[in-house]
């Protein structure tokens, strides 16, 4: 579930107008989470950090309380009534398996991978387009990133 902070532009807009009346709907402000190492001192901090990790489109690294580390994409979380019955699900960067990690086993979390949804603003693409156009380039495009 997205946090209020993540959705606040839309929530603010909907506080003042009915969705049925809107000509244009607000998007979302991007949070800069890359490189973040959240404090996991309280239950609330753990839940919030893992919620943000679920929302994050880059790899994360989890250090378990036994010292082992899992680096990969956190694609799901199951938030139970207590931390004991809550867990995250990760696809490690070097395997296809799905790994479950209980919230109570997590000692540390770091947003170590590049945020693949960050920095690709449309405005930036438009500016780049015009620079390329001015330089006489043809068939200008945003290409998907290389995977190797």
């Amino acid at each position, binding site marked *: 579930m997205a946090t209020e902070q993540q*959705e606040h532009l839309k929530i603010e807009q909907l506080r003042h107008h009915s969705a049925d009346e809107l000509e244009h709907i607000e998007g979302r402000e991007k949070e800069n989470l890359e490189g973040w190492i959240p404090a996991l001192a309280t239950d609330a901090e753990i839940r919030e950090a893992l919620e943000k990790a679920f929302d994050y489109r880059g790899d994360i690294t989890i250090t378990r309380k036994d010292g082992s580390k899992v680096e990969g994409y956190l694609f799901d979380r199951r938030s139970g009534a207590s931390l004991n019955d809550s867990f995250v699900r990760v*696809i490690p960067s070097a395997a296809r398996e799905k790994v479950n990690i209980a919230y109570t086993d997590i000692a540390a979390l770091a947003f170590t991978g590049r945020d693949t*949804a960050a920095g*690709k603003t449309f405005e930036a693409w438009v500016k780049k387009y015009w620079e390329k156009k001015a330089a006489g380039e043809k068939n200008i495009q945003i*290409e998907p990133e290389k995977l190797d």
Partner: protein
Amino acid sequence: MAVPVSQAWTVATYVLKQKLTGRKRYPLVLMLEPLFRCNLACAGCGKIQYPAHILKQDLSPEECFRAVEECGVPMVSIPGGEPLLHPQMPEIVAGLVARKKYVYMCTNALLLKEKLHLFKPSKYLSFSVHVDGQREHHDFSVCREGGYDIAMEGVRAAVAAGFRVTTNTTLFDGADPNSVRAHFDELMAAGVESMMVSPGYTYDKAPDQNHFLGKAKSRRMFRAILSNRKKSWQFNTHPLFSEFLMGKQNFECTPWGMPTFSIFGWQKPCYLLQDGYADTFKELMETTEWENYGAKSGNPRCANCMVHSGHEASAVDYAFSSLKGFLITAKKFVLPSTYEDADAMKLLNEWKPEHSGPLVQIQASSNATDDQLQTVSGD
């Protein structure tokens, strides 16, 4: 609605069976996402932003078949990513056709012409080509000059080879209804069987966060586009969904109507929102808190959604939920309306395009900083 009679019959008997067995929540179309990687990086897409090790993964044909059998739908839509990048896509499609599932293979068609020989024409298979408007609008939308010409070349090649070809047009803020109507003419002239048009969704991971249509503008725009329609235009959307877009019907979302399966599992709650994953279809249906979704729920992420994956199933369900709904729907199929509407024509004639010219339109609104510029994908 231009679909083969056999398909309409299959879907109708399937829905009737669900109703007769008292099943309250049933899926209609499986949105099967066998991969996330794509050969385009469209501004309005929030589907393809993942780490490379995720983008490299594919669902196997067996995983695809298992998902289809698990949920038991009569129709399968294969979006992505770009399905034609999947090395076993012909095998997946052939397996689904052998199971007598009606398959809509969604593609940007950049690879369609060269891969066409890997598929066999069938009444069960339709290439659903995403073309987001006339040449300049499509190229603008997919952030690629020349994309339209390649896609249309693919469309023509597929039509010539005897395939069913449908199209899917997604509209964002700034779309010009007059241009969309001209686009429909172009598509029908190219020989497509039928077309679908839908407003874009506010993906929170989409690069462009500033061009999402609100409901008021969506309804006005679709009323301008879909009223006074030409008899030559064939649509493959349910007529009541078309009326929903035009503001003539009001449907709540049916998020379970078009469930999504990908390498992560069954997506909660729908094709558009990612609130987690279930390992089985049964688990998806039983553990998703469905009351938290749809405009009525107050969920801000559902506030402006009018997308077909959430609402077309509602139109179908309405048609089979009462005699009145059935009769209204039957009439619309037998005697399709052109929706003559003088006010809509006035609206269309007075519509001021916000943009014009090939990609030139966006220069004025560009205010990127140098920092932003350095992080543009692929540059």
